[in-house]
């Protein structure tokens, strides 16, 4: 069999299989994005009226500016990847690795791996923890999900890039505030 035939048939197989996977993944992400927006709206309804208004305005702005921006945006999409955060609280000492993915017009962070103080690691259940609703490459805003005394809170947070491998995530929820340092893994 000619080498060109082998090459053509092989490339066809790869395109067919990997293409199907990407199509399915894209379709699934689009539907997740729709349901994700519904979820976010439910979360927003728990906020005071002025905050709700601010976030909704921000959403509208994002929808306008980011319409059909699923392609790679060099200015912002470098945030995609794995990020490690070290915690040193009474409830948890160790680190959590998050995976930030671009889904539709937002960036979502999912828990990826837990590490204890001794460095032992365990794969985490992929849970959406952070929704970055706006991000210009330097600063961003979003909703951060935290667990405190077995209660789950969705709170507003701000993101400040220190450099391309580090950013600060800060939040202040009725006096409960913290700043986390996220380092690229």
């Amino acid at each position, binding site marked *: 069999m000619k080498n060109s035939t*082998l090459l053509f048939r092989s490339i066809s*197989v790869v395109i067919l299989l990997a293409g*199907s*996977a990407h199509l399915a*993944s894209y379709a699934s992400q689009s539907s997740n994005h729709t349901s994700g927006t519904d979820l976010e709206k439910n979360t927003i309804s728990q906020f005071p009226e002025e905050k709700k208004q601010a976030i909704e305005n921000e959403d509208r702005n994002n929808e306008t500016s980011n319409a059909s921006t699923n392609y790679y945006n060099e200015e912002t999409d470098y945030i995609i990847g794995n990020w490690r955060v070290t915690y040193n609280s009474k409830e948890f000492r160790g680190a959590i690795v998050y995976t930030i*993915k671009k889904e539709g017009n937002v960036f979502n962070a999912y828990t990826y791996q837990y590490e204890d103080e001794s460095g032992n690691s365990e794969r985490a259940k992929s849970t959406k923890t952070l929704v970055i609703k706006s991000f210009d490459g330097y600063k961003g805003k979003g909703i951060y999900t935290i667990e405190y005394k077995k209660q789950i809170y969705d709170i507003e947070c701000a993101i400040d890039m220190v450099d391309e491998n580090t950013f600060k995530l800060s939040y202040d929820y009725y006096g409960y505030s913290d700043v986390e340092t996220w380092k690229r893994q």
Partner: protein
Amino acid sequence: MIEFLSKQLDWVDVNYWFYLINDLSLLYIIIPFFVLELIRYAWQKRLNKNLVFDSIANIITFGAFLIIEIILGVLAVTKLYYWLYNNASLPHLELNWVTIISCIILADFAYYWEHRMMHRIGIGWATHTVHHSSPHFNMSVAYRFGPLDAIMPILFSLPLVMLGYDPILVLLSEVFVQVFQTLLHTEIIGKLTRPVEFIFNTPSHHRVHHGSNRQYWDKNYAGILIIWDRMLGTFEPEVETVKYGISEPLNSTNPIKVFFHGITRLFKKIAGIEGFKNKLLVLIKPPDWMPKN
């Protein structure tokens, strides 16, 4: 159906399924089947010292292969996989059934090409000849590996990571292909039904692959799907009774000799060839290649 196939899955569940199939199959299929093969050898009065020592050598070569694999994995391979996944890959694929199934089929296709390369270039055959050098054909032969067998597959699995598949999923899929392959190393199962023989790699097709009969050389490279061989011109059905082994028999059950004989033969060949360029060409040209002069 499409909704089911594209529904996002949990890593914990996927890992558990692969654990049941990849890891535990040794206990519930492979070892019981090997015992059955030993009983059959005894029944046919073929159970002799050579077969027992050959099987022990197979397991020892697997141990050596595993050590090399672990060292490589810890030192560099996983880091390289993740670096490519984070810096040089298509958008990352979600974990769903379409991703898993396509990853297994692509891992199988990558295995076909890796296997074909192992047979068709000098350095590949120097390590893979170990697997083919046994004059017997049973489940223990599936564990007979050469010293570089852990390195070659890396070249072919890296493109999968670059296509957006999670490195762990790629690794689990590759092990799945290997586990399927293991089950094919048996003389107990004859030919299966036509549709199965047409689509899947079966013990019959894999016996051909291990044959030293001239018409069986470099045929049936497939892992799970024999359609790759049918599609790429390397298929051969089992007609003549298969004689197992290689064209230059090893005649040894010494595990060290078994593990290194391919590399030793390659070095001897290189030493006997004149010219630096020719010595390099021995590594990448087909195993039977010799310079014209």
